[in-house]
């Protein structure tokens, strides 16, 4: 798409797009290409020598259980984070939309956690939930007798990481749901009320169906967030442990590449992740296009 009224200049447009394209080339295309090449090479840890090994790196990944465990944990972690933060966000948005007084104060109180960095969120929640010095950890063990020890137990570690990762995402979802709720015409709600539908019936029969586009959009955005942006949470809380229980795919790229210095394996994982993101983005783009058509 282009404007009807345009400027003519043989050089200027290239000068204008150059900064973005140079940075894109240097920090996107070159590294992506490099990962693609490296995925087929076997290198020593110092990157001095390497040999072409075809699909060895991929084969090595898929022959061992670690990668599948990471895939499964990433799936569990990201769907749990998405579902938890979506339901909380929706619940708070519906409540905040009902009240008349203190509207903006309530909104601010529900929005500010968005500003917390995932890494900081990890530190705060670890301090809260730690089995030996956290207050929540203490009450889980002493009062609820839960046998809470996320430092050693995989499932509990996963719960802890999901809570920390969901925190800022609840605010994110809240913002979008409030927008979605306000876009629903008042007249539809009033018509249903005149027909005798109570508030809860109105929510499930009218409001919720009208929110489904927002819901699907947010679901993909939350998955993308949970898969790609939660490195900080995991690095500060569990370092992928215990026993690989919280090692997500992105964390594994880091752990194998920078800690384990296995360049080929890390590159092969990068390639797999790139393929996944390309699929997700394409689906998302299709979906957005459809939304535009029906809007």
């Amino acid at each position, binding site marked *: 798409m*282009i*404007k009807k*009224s345009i*400027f003519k200049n043989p050089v*200027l447009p290239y000068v*204008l797009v150059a900064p*973005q*394209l140079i*940075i*894109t*080339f240097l*920090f996107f*295309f*070159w*590294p992506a290409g*490099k*990962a693609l090449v*490296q995925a087929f090479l076997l290198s020593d840890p110092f990157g001095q020598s390497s040999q072409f090994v075809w699909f060895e790196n991929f084969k090595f990944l898929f022959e061992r259980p670690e990668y599948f465990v990471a895939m499964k944990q990433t799936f569990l972690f990201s769907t749990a984070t998405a579902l938890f933060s979506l339901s*909380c966000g929706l619940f708070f948005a519906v*409540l905040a939309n*009902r*009240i008349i007084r203190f509207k903006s104060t*309530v909104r*601010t*109180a*529900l*929005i500010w956690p*968005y*500003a*917390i*960095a*995932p*890494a900081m969120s990890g*530190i*705060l929640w670890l301090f809260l939930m730690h089995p*030996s*010095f956290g*207050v929540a950890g203490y009450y889980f063990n002493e009062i609820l007798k839960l046998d809470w020890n996320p430092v050693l137990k995989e499932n509990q570690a996963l719960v802890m990481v999901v809570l920390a990762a969901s*925190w800022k995402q609840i605010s*994110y979802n809240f*913002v979008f749901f409030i*927008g979605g709720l306000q876009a629903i015409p008042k007249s539809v709600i009033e018509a249903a009320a005149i027909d005798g539908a*109570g*508030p809860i019936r109105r929510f499930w029969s009218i409001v919720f169906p009208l929110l489904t586009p927002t819901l699907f959009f947010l679901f993909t955005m939350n998955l993308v967030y949970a898969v*790609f942006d939660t*490195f*900080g949470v995991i*690095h500060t809380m569990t370092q992928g442990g215990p026993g690989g229980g919280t090692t997500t795919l*992105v964390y594994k*790229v*880091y752990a194998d*590449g920078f800690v384990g210095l296995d*360049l080929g394996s*890390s590159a092969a994982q*990068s390639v797999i*992740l*790139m393929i996944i*993101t*390309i699929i997700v983005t394409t689906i998302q783009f299709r979906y*957005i296009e459809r939304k535009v058509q029906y809007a």
Partner: protein
Amino acid sequence: MIEKTPWLDRLTVLFLILGIAGLCFPLYYTFVAATLTLEQVSRVPMPMIPGNQFFHNAMIAMQKGDLGHKMFNSFLVALGITVGKISISMLSAFAMTYFNFPFRKLAFWMIFFTLMVPVEVRILPTYEVVSNVLSPINQILGWAHIQVNLNWSMLDSYSGLILPLVCSATATFLFRQFFLTVPDELCEAAKIDGLGPMQFFWHILLPLSRTNIAALTVIIFVFGWNQYLWPLLVTTKPEMQTAIIGIQGLIPKMDEMPEWHVAMAGSILVMLPPVLVVIFMQRWFVKGLIENEK
């Protein structure tokens, strides 16, 4: 309200209070820890009433973690990412909407591709490029059998922290979308008045884009301040680290004194700038958040 539902209204208020309390509790808890002494913070369970040691603890955190300097770094990096992202994407969006040139489509798709590959996915090869920004030139000349060994490392530098995060397809698309809605008459009038393209950009498009720029600034600033993985990789010198990495260094390790009160006082200081930005620029923030994702 349509009908009177006193019990439902009460439940609404009750759950809202519970929800806000739940969302704010980790921050309250952090704040309480930041105001206690070492002896109080080590008690299990920790007291839930704030003490009076906050400024003392904050001073120790500032000194121990060199937080003043690191917060300055964070500020520079966040500002650099914000200014860089907005300027390069405005310029390229301007080129793609107001000029018709060969390779216009190609440029569009090249930028679109960056949507698909976040930095987290390709950290190792990007790290290699940053450790020698001229390595692609070495390699390309190497294919032409010209041996060169140019070397320019961006590790431990502001440019290394900023540039790889500057590229943004979303900001470019946002401005492209906005420029497409600007009336054509403005451009016609400008041309009749003898304005060149850059004058048109500077005097007409830029002022029109003010609200979009404000909204994006809030979002990108928070994004930049909160970066973790990338600063962790490209900085090794303490004086180049950002504030959040600095906090990581304050967290007590297994065999150290459990000085959580100092770590938490530091955390409060480091979390404050983005939280204040979101609270006081909430209108722009909400607008930016919703538009940035479209």
